């Protein structure tokens, strides 16, 4: 009985160690993946910001045919006046 109990303890101890080591490896793998995704996110954010700079937008708007107005014309609306009865 004692031998059976000690054997079970030994086997469970080995299994637990294996499970813990596997979990540790998984955690390590997930940490690396998290770091990779975090780096990629920053890289993509940086790329996005670069494409949204004023110079880039001006260049793009120019290539799309938009031009800055040279002269502005202000139109004054006629003031309403009381009509004769």
């Amino acid at each position, binding site marked *: 009985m004692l031998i059976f109990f000690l054997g079970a303890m030994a086997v469970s101890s080995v299994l637990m160690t294996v499970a*813990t080591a596997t979990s*540790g490896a998984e955690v*390590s793998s997930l940490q690396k993946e998290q770091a990779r995704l975090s780096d990629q996110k*920053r*890289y993509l*954010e*940086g790329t996005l910001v*670069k494409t949204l*700079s*004023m110079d880039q937008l001006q260049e793009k708007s120019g290539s799309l045919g938009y031009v800055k107005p040279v002269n502005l014309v202000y139109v004054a609306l006629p003031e309403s006046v009381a009509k004769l009865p």
Partner: protein
Amino acid sequence: MLLKIRILSIVFLLLFAALSIRLFYWQVIKRASLSDEAKNQYNSSQIIAAPRGNILASDKSFWVVRTQAWLIWANPRQIELTPREISNKLSPFFVSDPGDAGSLLAESQRLETILGRGDVSWIALKQKVNDEVKRNIEALNIGGIGFDAQESSYYPEASSAAQILGFVGKDEKGSDIGYFGIEGYYDLPLSGKPGFVGGQKDAFGSPILLGGTKEVNAVSGVDLETSIDKRIQVAVEKGLAAGIGKYGALGGSVTVMDPADGSIMAMASFPSFDPAKYSGYSNSLFKNPVISDSFEPGSILKVAVMAAGLDAGVVQPETSCDICSGALKVDKYLIKTWNDRYHPGITMTDVIVESDNVGMSFVGQKLGADRLYDYLHKFGIGEKTGIDLQGEVAPKLREKGTWNVVDLATASFGQGVAVTGIEMVRAVAAIANGGYLVTPKVVGVIRSDGWEEKVKTPPPTRIISEKTAREVTQMMVEAVDRGEAKWTKIPGFSVAGKTGTAQIPVAGHYDAANTNHSFIGFAPAENPKFVMLVTLNSPQSSPWAAETAAPLWFSIAKELFPYLGVAPSQ
């Protein structure tokens, strides 16, 4: 036989004793050091860097965004190529222009020298290189070269707003720290707080979960949302650069502020620097002249002095000057007008329109030195405005009670008093907004993950009556419509403004050849959207601000009017 057994027993006994002594040595005497060595093998600890916060424009686009960068290092004991071979391969990636043979050679020599040091096991080769460079170097597959993640600042608008933003440099410990401008003023909240993770790792570097972990999360730096408008800032910078070239000035500054709440909409000075390459510029360019340089304001201060006279009730807009028929003798000095023309009985409105120094001396005399001092103090002259940028200075006013008649006369037309640009903008904003002194500010909102808070500033304080502000505003409108700068005004728009041509004090006297030019104004005159100060240092094209700073003010204002919805009043 018995003897043999005894001898064998003694040998075993001796061996047992030796083993026991050795075990005692390792397990008792050397226990502590061996235990530490073992812990060092499986324990790991790592500082978690706190990402520095970003700086945003008024439209929430980025002025500064923190990006991934890399520290490239080498282990000279592991490198397989010669230092020269490695330096030849790497140096083209580390210079801004690989076509520049001089800088390429210098970089190559620098790398070869540091790689030649065989007595160390880790050498930093280059800080903060971008992803693209890292990938290219990785592709070369050079043994003994490694990469550590770092943080870098990217400026989408390049050197725009450099003197507002400041830059991120290193402190004496080699850690990132903000210098000047927003980076310097808000360094602590931008930096955040680094975290820590500690635990045990096996031979492959995987965590041993049974060993337990200690983790303190890093607190990210906050993002700062500024009131700086990219479109206005870029328009101001383009206009200023063109104006400096056109009028042959040594430099200049433009500040645009919302007079209602003190929000800075744009602030530009030239010469300036590129914050991404700050180490290549002179330290003198890092400070923001608008908050760090003082100058004699000259005639632009007249509006504040006139406001003081009106508010104190010693003059009215129609009051006529009874000492304005000629140059005024004060002590041993003769006070003249800028064009040596005199206007007997000139009204106070026309004193501002004509920028009459004798007329302003009349106002000064009516006020008296102590009352003028009190009003200048109320307008914030001689004290820091409290703007949230690092590096603000405030030249002091001469102490109250020590002003003589000459000090009183000259101060009333802006001489013998030193101000910063931001002080002048704040003072005139008080006229523009109906009499309230506001605190200029650049950052409006601080935000972090799912949390944001408005930056609080002291409440505006009333310094002159609304009636006084209205009267001075009308005088400034008349100055634009009828004064020396009338040729440059934009027809139909209601603008209140004042020119200033000031002598430059040099070693106890005034520079005979050069003057500083300025124009300060706001628009529309009623319920203004912005107050703007333009200053030009020693322009050569004309001796008068009406022909340099004033047209520059209007050329920039012409860009701002449609954007800010300012329509013609006529």
